């Protein structure tokens, strides 16, 4: 595995397309901890299409290193347009692959982004259940 950031990672870090907040988001979550050096907040909007629930948009705000910021951005990109069920299968490996490799010490950043997505989905389903009851 590479010891260096890929060009792709650096591009996502410098010009993230999914940074920010969705004002009318369905869910909002935070993962990480400033003490440990990485904090990511994600907001997500979901739309229903027939019997499918599709991730319409995800935005992030991230405090962390370049890999954390780029991972957040890639995660949003990978998840967008997927159904909730599809999104559940995303793993940190998909992000690493999408970035074209990553220094081993940075892999935890991609995991944190995936944890963010998981938490978004959990939160979304918890809310849905509550609304149903």
């Amino acid at each position, binding site marked *: 595995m590479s010891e260096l*950031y890929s060009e792709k990672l*650096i591009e996502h*870090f*410098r010009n*993230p397309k999914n*940074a*920010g907040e969705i004002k009318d988001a369905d869910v909002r979550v*935070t993962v990480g901890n*400033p*003490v*440990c*050096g*990485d*904090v*990511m*907040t994600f907001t997500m909007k979901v739309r229903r299409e027939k019997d499918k629930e599709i991730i319409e948009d995800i935005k*992030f*705000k*991230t*405090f*962390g*290193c*370049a*890999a*954390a*910021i780029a991972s957040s951005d890639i995660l949003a990109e990978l998840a967008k347009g997927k159904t909730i069920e599809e999104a559940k299968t995303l793993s940190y490996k998909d992000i690493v692959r999408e970035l074209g490799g990553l*220094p*081993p*010490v*940075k*892999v*935890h950043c991609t995991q944190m982004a995936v944890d963010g997505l998981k938490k978004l989905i959990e939160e979304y389903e918890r809310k849905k259940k509550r609304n149903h009851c």
Partner: protein
Amino acid sequence: MDKRKVYLDNNSTTPLDPRVLDVMFPFLKEKWGNPNNIHVWGREAREAVETARENIKRMINCRDGNVYFTSGGTESNNWALKGIAFANIDKGKHIITTKIEHKCVLNTCKWLEKQGFEVTYLNVDREGFIDFDELEDALRKDTILVSIMLANNEIGTLEPVREACELVKDKSNAYFHTDACQAIGKMEVDVESLGVDLMTISAHKFYGPKGIGALFIRNGVKIDPLLHGGGQEKNMRSGTENVAGIVGMGKAAELVMKELDADKEKLRRFQKMIIEEILEKVKRTHLNGPSDLEKRLPGNVNFSVEGVEGESIVMMLDDYGIAVSTGSACSSKQLIPSHVLMAIGLKPEVAHGSVRISAGRFNTDEDIAYFLEVFPGVISKLRSISPLWQG
């Protein structure tokens, strides 16, 4: 179109001075002899090595001892600590150092602890200074070595080494070692006035090549070699000499002797400009290390910038062709905040947002102006995507 490039990471490594390269070149091209040989190839190499040694001795005013060439600051520090430790076991197994030494001192101490030595790590105050009372209290009958750095590489604190050394000599029989890697080339360093027994030097911090350094050892100091072998360096440090590196280091020392005053004045000026302007322009930014610039390594600046993480600052500045460093480093589980910033009492989340800007001999006024122009915008951009920033 070539992007503008501004190197402000001189505490990490310095550019090789072109005048240094000029004198190294012949020792790579045709004078590649081994100085341990008595034929003409060996003799011309030997002469060059000894001339370089004399320059380095002069630079640090070495009159009562010698300098021995090593592969750099890390080796010199490892040697000083382990060499004294193993050679003086009969006198004791206690060592004193500080919490803000370079990792090559701290991790050597950790290893020595595994071998049964005992190490006291002195605290520092919010600006990085040690406390004399704490040092005095730490001294014991079995203390064999005190190692305190001359200038801290992250926050630029100039430790009161002369006074500390006096105290140690007064109250104990311990040897005194100082790591002068950062100080050389940026301020006067005089082993006679400091009074130290051992001192570490690294060439690539003063416009010399990487992979070469030295250890000053005062006459009479009892120390084991770290590298045993063929008996080079008067049997103190074996291994075929890195002749080109040594010649380069000697030239770098010569240039320091000539140009230190001018360099220092310039570094002080740049340092002041950066500190004053950034603190004013970028809100919720804090200076780490001494605010009294007389007690700070010329050219060194270290800020904590709230709401953003250090590596991301470095990477974003890199996009503008500007090189700086951060104390924040990624491990495999999390970001590890700098041990120096933790030791001066920063909260981890503040330590994570640290950035070190360090000027050097080759920086110009234009470099500093460009940095000052770019930096605030980079911080704004990163803060705008940070969840910890409510602008």
